[in-house]
């Protein structure tokens, strides 16, 4: 299928069209904080300021808080009710390639072994419309993870900013269906495609933070017991949940029950391996010390996930760097991992 294009000024109309069929979510600002919100009409002003959201779009598929089911106490037992219904068909407009890849990474866990009905249903009913980056952050390092800031790999429909227009490419059948229904797009010219290519190259060049992501696996495995190293690099970590909660690939959750009088609900909410309580068990806590928790986070992303699924559970979105209150920088830590030879000599 040849590429199409849509005028920048027509994006709002396109979103209005889609809103008749889908619940449409777009980048939005609440008190200056970029997040995802339902498209409410008006102009698509976010196109001018949007770089990425603080809370990643994983929150739309795996919310910070969701009710798994309700229950009523009656007589001696409990009657279990259905979870609240989720959106039938919905569309995320403007997801960045790093975050789209992260959803694919998350899916590996949510359909491995057990099928997570909550995540998978939202994924099945959802359509992803990607928007390539033109202004990556200083903290971004997606190109080190094999992702380009304009990558179309994990979305249904991909848009690339070429000035007054966006180049539009259907990637999946869902994307093709979306395009076939609208009259707002027209065929792109060779010049449009050339401009898109330029935009892609320029965006890639703007990602300047680099890390040797492939070499990390062996170094992490070899240095797992290097307590001195992990103690040193974890010293300034304050063990809050920012880097895990706002990581687009972190998926740990906690389950809480609440019973008020006879009406109750079971909730699941984000949990974090940074919290000491996360691994607390009746007799012991295998990760009581901060360095063990921090090692777990890094190894999970760059060693254990590749072992299980052959993919690194980091997409270089940079949130953990730019939102950290102490500027704990995973790229610095990965770059300072002791080389294997050095470890062998020390042994």
């Amino acid at each position, binding site marked *: 299928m040849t590429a199409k294009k849509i005028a920048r000024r027509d994006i709002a109309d396109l979103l209005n069209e889609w809103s008749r069929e889908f619940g449409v979510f777009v980048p939005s600002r*609440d*008190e*200056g*904080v970029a*997040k995802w919100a339902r498209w409410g009409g008006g102009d698509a002003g976010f196109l001018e300021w949007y*770089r990425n959201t*603080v*809370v990643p779009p994983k929150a739309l598929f795996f919310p*910070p*808080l969701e009710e798994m089911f309700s229950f009523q106490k009656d007589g001696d037992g409990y009657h279990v009710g259905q979870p609240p219904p989720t959106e039938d068909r919905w569309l995320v407009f403007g997801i960045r390639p790093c975050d789209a890849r992260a959803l694919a990474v998350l899916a590996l866990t949510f359909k491995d072994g057990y099928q997570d009905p909550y995540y998978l249903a939202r994924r099945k009913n959802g359509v992803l419309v990607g928007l390539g980056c033109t*202004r990556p*952050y*200083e*903290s971004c390092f997606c190109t080190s993870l094999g992702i380009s800031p304009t990558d179309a790999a994990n979305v249904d429909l991909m848009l690339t900013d070429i000035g007054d227009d966006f180049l539009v490419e259907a990637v999946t059948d869902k994307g093709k269906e979306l395009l076939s229904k609208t009259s707002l797009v027209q065929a792109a010219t060779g010049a449009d495609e050339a401009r898109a290519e330029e935009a892609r190259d320029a965006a890639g060049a703007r990602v300047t933070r680099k890390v040797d992501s492939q070499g990390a696996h062996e170094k992490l495995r070899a240095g797992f017991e290097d307590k001195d190293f992990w103690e*040193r690099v974890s*010293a*300034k970590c*304050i*063990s*809050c*949940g*920012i880097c895990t*909660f*706002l990581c687009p690939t972190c998926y740990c959750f*906690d389950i*809480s029950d*609440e019973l008020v009088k006879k009406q109750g609900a079971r*909730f699941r*909410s*984000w*949990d*974090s391996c940074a*919290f000491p*309580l996360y691994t607390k068990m009746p007799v012991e806590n295998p990760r009581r010390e*901060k360095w063990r928790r921090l090692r777990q986070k890094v190894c999970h992303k760059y060693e254990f996930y590749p072992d299980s699924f052959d993919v690194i559970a980091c997409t270089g979105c940079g949130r953990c*760097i*730019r*939102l950290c*209150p*102490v*500027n*704990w*920088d995973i*790229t*610095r830590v990965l770059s300072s991992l002791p080389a294997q030879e050095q470890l062998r000599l020390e042994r």
Partner: protein
Amino acid sequence: MAPTDCLPMKNGIMEQRLRREAKALLEQGKVSCVIGFEAGSLKFTTTPLITGDKDDTQRLVISPFMANNLSVFLTGVKGRVAIVAKGCDSRSIVSLIQDNKVVREDVVIIGVPCSGVIDLTKVEGLVGKDRDEIADITRDGDKVLITVNGDKRECPVQEVLFDNCLACEMPTPQEYDILLGEPTAAAGDKEKAKSREKINSLETMKPDERWAFWRNEFSRCIRCYACRNVCPACFCERCFVEETEPPWVLPIPRWQDSLMFQVVRNLHVAGRCTDCGECERACPVGIPLRSLAREMYDIVGELFSYRAGMDKEAPPLLACYEPTDVEDFIR
């Protein structure tokens, strides 16, 4: 302008002295660890440097971006420690001493006369650019020079300092072992008034408006506990929100639970909070937590004529009782 009034130069001189002093303390075995700031990995940032290696002391910096309150790390390190402290940080250290969390003799306080820390969110608001798209921010005296796309813009420093810096009562530590420079002046009334603008606007709201305001703010809370974990006054080994049998507040990001957590946290740090502003700065979703913290700070001042971290010999506020204490709130 005389060269000695030039802030970058003053900072440079303090930085050189800091590196010398820190190195000597480690070399002479007077401390086993130094806690200070080094250059961060992003523009206009510093990051905590916690080290026992004397060679690392060459990385220590003094800059207008030293935002963290390093005293939060004191209870986590063993042995005798040297710590870089701005005025507000020194008050937190004193407060920790009052609470027997830190032994005075085990800490070498390296005091930094502080001229205020630059709030990058305010700079962003002023120039309409994100921090990583700003080429340069230079503080010089009462002015700040901001360079964006080759254009230089000058503004009074009060426009871009953190709100808590505008209200600072102790820019230069009173409690110190080494002081790196000449004391700086405390905030004037004009700055203090500016620092309360947000709180004043909350106070003029009708109760239901204010309730709606906080409801909206706490709807963004993700319960990451960064506000608690950066707070030196939040030193409980186990926070009440971690109680599970029975739970006091569920660990779920429902706005009511999150608001309850923050209100109880504010009560817990009453009389310990020094208005360092870290809770608000750390919040990834921009909840104006200092408005709550500062209001509590002022209530403590009003009711008990007490300001946290001013006197290491004073008993902690909530661990003592005076017959003259107000009690008309008991009904």
